[in-house]
């Protein structure tokens, strides 16, 4: 632990810390552009200059200088001030003065730092350099004249996203950042380069010229596009959410968000259900709330089935469950019927941060890149940092890193191939991840548990057994009992007279031909098309909700905007309906509901990782056959919000189906 002195303040810094980190620990602000905590060090912007003794009598780039014992660091000398002014002046030489028309304005590192550390006026009178725009895909808008070549985007693409498609071509004054031959970035995380860009060179294409940051109301929320539970901030103006940005949470998403998380928000204003509908003579007709409730009452016999969709919050599921009063609850819309007697056996036990420390990872029928892109980056990290070996059973797919494919035959689970067996045997922290693609097949869950037992994946300080869900509502649903024995097929076979569908758009509705179907949701998607009564609910941005992510982390998001038209928060709908049905639910406010929910399922009352313990159900483990495909066919169109989003449709057309869009000038 070296001891250093920063501006007269003596402090101890961890071994391997840089001078910049030491200064930050001392509470000094060091301006920087290229340095980023989560990327490798480049040291090319020179903005972080400080004076260090002992050392050469010149300013030193603190981001690339290791802190050593006895260093005396000064960040407040005239030399440092002058050096910063000089670097700033050079950076601004070729930077256009187009802040008024730049989307980064107001949240621009260059703007802020030039005010704080620049010299005020430029002495440069020659022509500025201009750079042609580059094409980087449907989400990233470029204005490369503004680029200061910090190479953060290049390093992000290589180190985090795992795609080496972004680079710097040319040299000197002609150096330009671009994607390979200006093809679109083939990544589910491409939107993050917009946040990383310290200037306005890379901005969000769908958000271009929409708003200034200071006009926006910022609401902390939880993303529902996948089961990672990305912590997000919803920026809204008036009644519309304009963008979603990740919040920093090292346990979940670090500071990244997938493209779907960021850019599906325009779907929140399209194809919305804003008034109740009743099916009359085969056609859905707009109605009043009271009429809709009466129509439901006519089919109410004291019990109902409830089918939860992928994006529902726990409050809604709890309210629906209390009203329905049955065990006919199911959230696994696509027909999965795995055993849920032990929640720990269907949880991501290693935790999202934990998987970074694994040294051998086996993926079983999991297309991680599409199912949970941010878990995929953790595995990428495990490979980079710990030289982890990754094996996979399933059809070959590009996961952005090197994978040893063991074929798609499930028998590899019971008779582990030698390479896998050897690796698992000698591994210190082995982990397996069972994806939804494998859980479809009978016996896989049991076989995976048997494999875990055989190779002692669960140890005192390490649990390497993971099931990867990709529906935000899944873990919360399982905690609330939304798992019918035998899955949705068996539930439908019981022929419920009345069935509530909570934003369930993936269900095979032909199974419920005999039921009176009430759809409570926010988008006019598949579920609404089949409904007999539609009750318009709130999307994730329009209600405060509790979500449990794939590792069992209970998180709460807040309401950013109000639901459109007559739509109401879902729990309030069930509370109102309960009055009509003569079974008044015992809560009048969200807080009261949460208190009731915490009484029923205590873990949902506490934010943070829920403890499921570890218990192993004994399941049949005979497996045969092959993993045919992965459940997510189109990453950009997995739920009702994405399908309503123009941006996501464009991404899907271009990145998944290869449609080429011509630019206006062509």
């Amino acid at each position: 632990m070296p001891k250093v002195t920063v501006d007269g303040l003596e402090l101890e810094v961890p071994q391997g810390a840089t001078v910049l980190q030491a200064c930050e620990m001392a509470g000094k602000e060091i301006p920087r552009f290229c340095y980023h905590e989560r990327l490798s060090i480049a040291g090319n912007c020179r903005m972080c200059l400080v004076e260090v003794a002992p050392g050469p009598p010149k300013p030193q780039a603190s981001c690339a200088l290791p802190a050593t014992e006895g260093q005396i660091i000064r960040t407040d000398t005239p030399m440092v001030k002058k050096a910063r002014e000089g670097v700033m002046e050079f950076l601004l030489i070729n930077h256009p003065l187009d802040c008024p028309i730049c989307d980064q304005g107001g949240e621009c590192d260059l703007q802020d730092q030039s005010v704080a550390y620049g010299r005020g006026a430029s002495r440069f009178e020659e022509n500025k350099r201009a750079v042609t725009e580059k094409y980087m895909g449907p989400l990233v808008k470029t204005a490369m004249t503004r680029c200061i070549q910090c190479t953060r985007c290049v390093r992000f693409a290589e180190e985090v996203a795992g795609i080496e498609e972004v680079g710097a071509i040319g040299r000197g004054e002609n150096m330009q950042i671009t994607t390979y031959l200006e093809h679109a970035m083939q990544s589910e995380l491409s939107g993050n380069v917009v946040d990383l860009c310290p200037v306005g060179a890379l901005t969000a294409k769908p958000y271009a010229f929409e708003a200034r940051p200071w006009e926006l109301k910022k609401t902390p929320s939880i993303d529902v596009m996948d089961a990672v539970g990305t912590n997000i901030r919803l920026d809204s103006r008036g009644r519309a959410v304009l963008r979603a940005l990740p919040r920093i949470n090292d346990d979940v998403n670090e500071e990244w968000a997938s493209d779907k998380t960021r850019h599906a928000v325009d779907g929140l204003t399209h194809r919305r259900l804003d008034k109740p509908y009743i099916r009359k003579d085969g056609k859905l007709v707009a109605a009043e709330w009271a009429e809709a409730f009466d129509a439901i009452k006519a089919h109410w016999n004291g019990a109902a089935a409830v089918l939860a969709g992928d994006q529902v919050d726990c409050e809604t599921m709890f309210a629906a469950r209390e009203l329905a009063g049955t065990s006919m609850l199911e959230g696994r819309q696509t027909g999965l019927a795995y055993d849920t007697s032990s929640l720990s056996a269907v949880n991501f036990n290693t935790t999202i941060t934990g998987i970074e420390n694994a040294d051998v990872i086996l993926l079983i029928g999991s297309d991680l890149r599409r199912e949970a892109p941010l878990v995929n980056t953790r595995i990428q990290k495990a490979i980079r940092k710990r030289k982890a070996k990754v094996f996979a059973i399933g059809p070959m797919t590009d996961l952005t890193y090197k994978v040893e494919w063991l074929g798609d035959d499930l028998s590899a689970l019971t008779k582990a191939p030698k390479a896998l067996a050897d690796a698992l045997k000698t591994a210190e922290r082995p982990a397996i991840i069972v994806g939804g693609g494998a859980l479809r097949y009978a016996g896989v869950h049991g076989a995976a548990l048997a494999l875990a037992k055989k190779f002692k994946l669960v140890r005192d300080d390490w649990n390497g057994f993971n099931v990867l869900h990709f529906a935000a509502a899944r873990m919360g649903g399982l905690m609330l009992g939304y798992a019918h024995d035998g899955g949705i097929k068996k539930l439908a076979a019981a022929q419920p007279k009345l069935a509530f569908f909570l934003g369930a758009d993936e269900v095979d509705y032909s199974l419920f031909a005999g039921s009176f179907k009430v759809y409570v949701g926010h988008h006019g998607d598949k579920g609404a098309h089949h409904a007999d009564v539609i009750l318009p609910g709130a999307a994730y941005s329009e209600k405060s909700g509790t979500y449990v992510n794939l590792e069992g982390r209970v998180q709460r998001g807040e309401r950013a905007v109000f639901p459109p038209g007559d739509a109401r928060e879902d729990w309030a709908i069930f509370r109102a309906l309960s009055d009509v049905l003569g079974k008044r639910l015992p809560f009048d406010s969200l807080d009261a509901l949460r208190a009731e929910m915490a009484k029923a399922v205590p873990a949902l009352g506490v934010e943070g990782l829920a403890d499921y313990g570890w218990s192993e159900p004994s399941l049949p483990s005979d497996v045969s056959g092959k993993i045919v495909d992965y459940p997510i066919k189109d990453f950009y169109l997995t739920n009702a919000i994405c399908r309503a989003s123009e941006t996501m449709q464009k991404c899907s057309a271009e990145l998944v189906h290869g449609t080429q869009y011509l630019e206006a000038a062509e």
Partner: protein
Amino acid sequence: MADAVNIPDEAETRAKWSNFAFSKEYKARADMYIGRYPAGRQQSAVMALLDLAQRQVGEETHTQGWLPVPVIEYVASYLGMPYMRTYEVATFYTMYNLAPVGRYHVQVCGTTPCMLRGSDDILAACKSRGLVKGATTPDGMFTLNEVECMGNCASAPMVQINDDNYEDLDHGSMTAILKDLAEGKQPKIGTQLPGRHTVEPYGGATTLHAMVDKNHDYRGEY
């Protein structure tokens, strides 16, 4: 203005070059270069391999050679590198031509020492023979480019034509060199001054006179 790199029509070059592969001799040399680096570090040979690929393209097209995109990709796959990383190298160094060049690639040095010694005359000589900066002559013989210092300041002005340097030029000697090349003759390589061999002081030593004939220890005379 830093324009996008001018990549010749992608579809056409892909059609023409997508089957590129090292010939037997070039493959042997490529593997020799790769062998110079430790196993797993074969990417270090990227510059040598790009040069070999450019030479082979040159032989196939009877020019100095260039690097079509599919050839860059071939080299990248040969070394197990991402395309982008190889492409970065190919665009960084001026030695790699990203567009087709002629039989002779005339690179005139225009940096200060050469300019002071008359590189403008050299460019004028090129111009009078129909060479245009940044373009190839219609007969495909010459491509002219002005480049930065090539390290021959002691025998300025100079040009590099393909692999050879021609130094101590003037308008006349440059015209003669271009004429010879156009006629298929090999002009004298190196300095064009009569009596000069390399870059020794022209017209005899101006300093260290005592060293001209035999070794002399100056140390006592400081």
